[in-house]
C-alpha cells in the first residue's frame, strides 16, 4: 500500500510522541486500536509500521492508557483508551506545546526575544 510520505527534518522526542499518541487515542471516546493509532500518527510523522508498540506500552505502564478487548468481526480486538491520568498528562503536554511553539514562532519571525507581551503564555507554563 502506498502512503503519502511525511518528510521529517525535525525529529520527535519521546515526550512529543507520547503527546501525539495520547491526543490520537483521546480523539476517540471509546478508545481505538493499534493499527488505527499507527495510521493516524503516520499522517504527521514517519514512524515505521512496527514502532508505536513501545510508546503504547510505556503509556500503559504509566497508567495513561488502559486496554480492553472487544469483539470485532469474529475476533477480539484490543482497544486502547485514555485514562484520567492520561488526560491530565495530555493537557499538560498541550499547554507546554502551545507555549513552546509560541516562543519558537517568535524567534522565527524575528520578533524581539525581550518582548514580554501580556505574559499570557508565560503564565500558562506554570
Amino acid at each position, binding site marked *: *500500500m502506498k502512503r503519502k510520505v511525511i*518528510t*521529517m*527534518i525535525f*525529529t*520527535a522526542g*519521546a515526550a512529543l*510522541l507520547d503527546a501525539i499518541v495520547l491526543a490520537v487515542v483521546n480523539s476517540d471516546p471509546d478508545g481505538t*486500536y*493499534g*493499527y*488505527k493509532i*499507527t495510521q493516524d500518527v503516520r499522517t504527521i*510523522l*514517519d*514512524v*515505521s*509500521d*512496527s*514502532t*508505536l*508498540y*513501545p*510508546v*503504547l*506500552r*510505556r503509556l500503559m505502564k504509566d497508567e495513561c492508557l488502559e486496554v480492553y478487548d472487544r469483539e470485532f468481526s469474529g*475476533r477480539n*480486538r*484490543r482497544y486502547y483508551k485514555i485514562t484520567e491520568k492520561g488526560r491530565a498528562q495530555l493537557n499538560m503536554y498541550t499547554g507546554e506545546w502551545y507555549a513552546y511553539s509560541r516562543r519558537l514562532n517568535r524567534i*522565527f*519571525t*524575528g*520578533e524581539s*526575544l*525581550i518582548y*514580554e507581551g501580556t*505574559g499570557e503564555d*508565560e503564565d500558562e507554563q506554570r
Partner: protein
Amino acid sequence: MNKDDFLRELAAELSDLSEKDRDDAIKYYSDYIDDAGYDAETVIAELGTPGAVAATVRSESPVIRETADIPNPPANPEIVNPIPVIKQNKAERRLPAWVIVVLTLLSPVLLALALVSLVIVILLVLLILAIPLLLAALTLGSIAGGMTLLIAGITITPHYAPPGFFSMAVALGLVGFGCIFLILTCICFTRILPGLFGLFFSGKKKVKKEGGME
C-alpha cells in the same frame, strides 16, 4: 511468511520476556496484521523480520525515519540568505493600510483621551495619597488643640469654674476624636497604603520575574 509463522517466531524471539509482556506484544502485532485489511504477507514484510520487530518491542522508543535527503538548503535561495526572509516577515506583520489611516485620523482624539485619562489617574493617586495625610493632620490638630484647651481649662477653673469645666470637657472630647483619627491614620499607613502600592507595583514585579525566567 504467513501470520502464524511470524507470530510464532516473534514469540520465540521474545521468550525471555514475562508471559504477560510477550502476550501483549503478540496480541498487538496479531491485531495489527488483521486490521491492516490487506494481504498478511505484505503487512508482515512491512513490519520487518521477527527479530527486528522483537528488537523494537524491547526498545524504549520507536524508530523514526530521519530523512537524509530533505535538508538541501542551497536549492532554496530564501534559506541560503535568511535576512530577506526576516524582512519579509516583518513587513507581513505590519498593520493593514486602512488601520493606519484610521489611527492617524483619530490621533488627536486619542491623544486628548490619553491625556485626560492620565490626569484623572494622577488626581486619583494624589487623592488617595492625601487621605492619610489629612487624617494625620486631623489627629495632630485635635490632640494639640485638646491639650491646649485642657491646660487653659485647668488654669481658668480656680478663678471662674463654669467655663473652665466646659473647656476641659471640650478638650477631653477633642483628645478622644484625636485618638480615633490616630487609629485611622495608623490603619491607613500600615494596611491601605501598602495594599495600594502592592496593586500599583505588582504588575512590574511580575514582569521582572518572568524576564528572569526567560
